[in-house]
């Protein structure tokens, strides 16, 4: 008979897998700053967010789809962001704040299923939910405040980007678990 509490605790393979995700996505997050700013300068904030923002949300659904335990999405997003904050990027230590908030919201997609489902839909929703804190923090911390209709559009665009990258994350995790 399997005891649920044993299934949901982390072993060291899970913990070190989080370390791998942290390292890989710290590199990915750092690399994405350049295309984000380049596209934003040329195409504006909407296009830049549609094409790049989801990449910053991808670590959470990947970690959750791979490890499949409570808090894996939160840790999977926060740890790479923490690592990214000590690499030279324009965001500095704010990256950790974004990571914590995005990880928390991504985790909600799996909380809703009581941690019984770690499928494609949950990964897409997890990526999409991270849009809420990302857009909110952009407004609160960096003054990126627009009229309400424009803000709603940005939120939808970022959610779509997050959902697409969430699906990519699920496929990566599925390929690794195969």
């Amino acid at each position, binding site marked *: 008979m399997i005891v649920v509490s044993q299934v949901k605790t982390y072993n060291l393979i899970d913990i070190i897998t989080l370390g791998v995700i942290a*390292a*890989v996505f710290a590199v990915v997050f750092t690399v994405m700053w*350049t295309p984000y700013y380049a596209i934003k300068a040329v195409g504006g904030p909407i296009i830049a967010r549609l094409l790049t923002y989801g990449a910053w949300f991808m670590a959470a659904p990947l970690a959750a789809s791979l490890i499949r335990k409570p808090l894996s999405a939160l840790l999977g997003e926060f740890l790479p962001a923490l690592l990214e904050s000590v690499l030279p*990027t324009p965001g500095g230590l704010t990256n950790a704040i974004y990571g914590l908030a995005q990880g928390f919201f991504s985790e909600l997609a799996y909380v809703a299923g009581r941690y019984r489902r770690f499928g494609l839909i949950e990964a897409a929703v997890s990526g999409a939910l991270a849009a809420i804190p990302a857009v909110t923090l952009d407004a609160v911390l960096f003054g990126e405040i627009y009229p309400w209709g424009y803000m709603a559009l940005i939120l939808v665009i970022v959610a779509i980007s997050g959902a697409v990258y969430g699906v990519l994350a699920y496929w990566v995790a599925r390929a690794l678990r195969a």
Partner: protein
Amino acid sequence: MKTPFSTFALLTYALVLTGLAFISKNPTVLIALLAPPLTLMLISGSRRLVWVFLLFLIGEIGVFLNALFFSNTGSVVLDLGFVSIREGAVNGFIVVTLRMLLITSAGNLLVFSKSPVDIFREIVFGLGLSPYLSIPLAYSLRILPVVGRDLKEAVFIRRQKKEGVNPLNPLNFYSITLTLMAVNYERAVWSGISAELRGLKYFKPRFNYRVNKWDLLLFTLLATQLLIFAKCEL
């Protein structure tokens, strides 16, 4: 160039200034907060500093356009014929620029002065993190240069095979991410087994910090900046 301050002092300094950056809206206060870390960062920086500033400048285009479209109120400052730049846009641009510059300076002062190993040792020991956070952070720090090398090799091989490397293409992004994760996941599994056998999960970090004269100087500077902030903002 390394600064004489300890990692703990620099980390505290960076965290406090980053917090103040989000609260302050007064350009004079932001300049008073910004001047020391910016100076120190310029002194301790490297050629990576050029890259960070280049990205910052590119971002400023977006900040300016944002201010021009959504904060362009008040008296006219500059009339270009096809567009009038008003006081609101200029103030908004200045405040956001100073805020971002302060955040960048405070964070990158730490990054340019200390190695990631020192920074994380301070985060782990100074903050007393649990093994569930300290072990993955320590491991990720160790393999970060390896992951960077794996990425370069993956991009090189894809170019040799005439395959795309543009990260904006989802298929390229998926392929490169899968390559990085596949190689490092295998390492993680075997490292995890090895760590279990060695009893690493019983690791408990201990905090050990001693103030030196340079740290006292930095904390005095921080206290002065906090007083200026409190006097002008509160």
